[in-house]
């Protein structure tokens, strides 16, 4: 290659592709390097994307054959015990009547390929099947390009944007981001299960094109700090389950066995009955929160998306932050070009944009949420079990007066938690999301 570019973007996921899109549209000579055989080949998410952030980059994305699966019109929340569980849900007509999509499901292999294709159409050079192995720096340590695993694969660039995802082996090697600690990431496994579109419509009580998300907390993670989800695609379901990696290293729970037990759960089995497994995957989720965010700018470089640990674990928001941080990075780079200053100071527009947006505001708001969950494992063990016990007792008609049942339930709760402990969980929980 040995070519000179204005900007080299590492990774053609949502962060990298949106940055490349904005840069190329602004006339900046941009190369977008991707290690997979095509954009999206290495990428996974639960599968929900948000229209608002995407429309800032590709207005009318639905009209541009964006390969989305279903428009999410209902969100369910499940609290599962071993044998059953509570379910709550919210559906709103507004979500299917809105002209632009709010939340929708995607398969990232298809979506990311389309999104990177949009960046190519703007003029960015997309180079797949290429691993960036190192940075090139000048005498003063400023980044001036990247090395790749292609023969003669050095690429000079005035700015490098690192957007290579949560599992950034490059950042680890170069020290741009310290390796996450096991406590800073969740390990999630995912299975896509094929089912006819009509069957999904019936089982989830939706019309074609409309979809449902189910977020699940409870005993299905074997007492580990984690969650599961079920999302509807056009003619498949995405099932994911994961837990904090530090919990996985302590418990001898195998992720794929946990996934199979989840699939056999009485609330889940009827939804996937007759389905055909299509694909099995694993990925990290950035869970370190605000305190795990590394330095995001330096002399000649910026970091966006998951590799910058920008992820809101409570609201399953990550790809939107990736897209918007990629866009901010691109805007800041274009400012730096006007100033002719590619040092950290010249790129500071990136940091100020992040600080002024929902991204850093949300990251700060939920700063204590990760530590809260890690310190209160009862959220995943005794609390769902007690809730299920109480519900089962009250719903079992067996001649025992309700007052007696209620007394027994309270005694069981009191044996598990003192009133002080209950207050502490409540207090810590409220503070963690304030």
């Amino acid at each position: 290659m040995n070519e000179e570019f204005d900007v080299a973007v590492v990774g053609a996921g949502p962060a990298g592709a949106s940055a490349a899109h904005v840069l190329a549209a602004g006339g900046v000579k941009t190369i977008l390097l991707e290690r997979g055989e095509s954009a999206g080949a290495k990428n996974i998410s639960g599968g929900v994307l948000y229209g608002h952030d995407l429309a800032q980059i590709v207005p009318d994305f639905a009209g541009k054959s964006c390969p989305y699966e279903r428009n999410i019109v209902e969100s369910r929340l499940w609290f599962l015990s071993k044998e059953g569980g509570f379910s709550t849900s919210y559906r709103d007509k507004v979500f299917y009547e809105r002209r632009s999509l709010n939340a929708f499901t995607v398969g990232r292999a298809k979506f990311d390929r389309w999104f990177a294709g949009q960046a190519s159409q703007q003029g960015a050079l997309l180079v797949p099947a290429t691993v960036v192995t190192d940075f090139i720096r000048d005498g003063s340590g400023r980044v001036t390009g990247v090395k790749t695993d292609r023969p003669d694969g050095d690429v000079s660039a005035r700015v490098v944007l690192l957007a290579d995802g949560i599992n950034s082996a490059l950042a680890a090697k170069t020290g741009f981001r310290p390796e996450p600690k096991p406590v800073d990431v969740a390990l999630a496994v995912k299975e896509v299960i094929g089912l006819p579109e009509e069957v999904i419509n019936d089982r989830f009580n939706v019309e074609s094109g409309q979809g449902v998300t189910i977020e699940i907390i409870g005993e299905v993670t074997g007492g580990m700090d984690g969650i599961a989800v079920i999302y509807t695609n056009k003619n498949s379901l995405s099932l994911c389950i994961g837990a904090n990696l530090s919990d996985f290293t302590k418990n001898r729970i195998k992720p794929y066995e946990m996934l199979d037990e989840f699939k056999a759960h009485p609330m889940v089995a009827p939804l996937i009955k007759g389905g055909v497994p299509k694909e099995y995957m694993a990925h990290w989720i950035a869970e370190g929160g605000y305190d795990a965010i590394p330095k995001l700018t330096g002399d000649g470089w910026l970091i966006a998306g998951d590799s910058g640990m920008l992820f809101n674990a409570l609201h399953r928001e990550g790809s939107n932050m990736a897209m918007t941080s990629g866009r901010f990075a691109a805007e800041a780079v274009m400012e730096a070009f006007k100033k002719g200053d590619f040092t950290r100071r010249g790129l500071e527009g990136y940091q100020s944009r992040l600080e002024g947006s929902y991204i850093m505001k949300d990251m700060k708001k939920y700063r204590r949420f990760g530590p809260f969950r890690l310190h209160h494992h009862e959220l995943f063990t005794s609390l769902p079990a007690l809730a299920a016990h109480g519900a089962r007792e009250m719903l079992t008609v067996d001649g025992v007066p309700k007052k007696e049942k209620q007394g027994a339930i309270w005694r069981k709760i009191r044996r598990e938690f003192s009133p002080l402990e209950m207050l502490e969980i409540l207090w810590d929980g409220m503070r963690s999301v304030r």
Partner: protein
Amino acid sequence: MTTKVEDKLFLDRFKVNEEAHIKIIDQGLCNTRCEEEPCLYFCPANVYRREKDRIVVAYEGCLECGSCRIGCPNLNIEWRYPVGGYGIAHKFG
């Protein structure tokens, strides 16, 4: 529904490179300094297996999550990206 992880991996498309992208740095360390051997459990592709005096690495089925790189208590696993275009290629993602 499938139960064995081998069956799950069979659903995936891999382009296998002859060169391994995962290496145990020091086999001796696994034998002497690691009682828990968590890599045998948390790896979602069951890449690691113990064979008598050594840990065998079936890197061909690696799902590239990165967990072993930081989950190994002795940081005794060298993990790089597979060569460009190799490794797992998601059909759905």
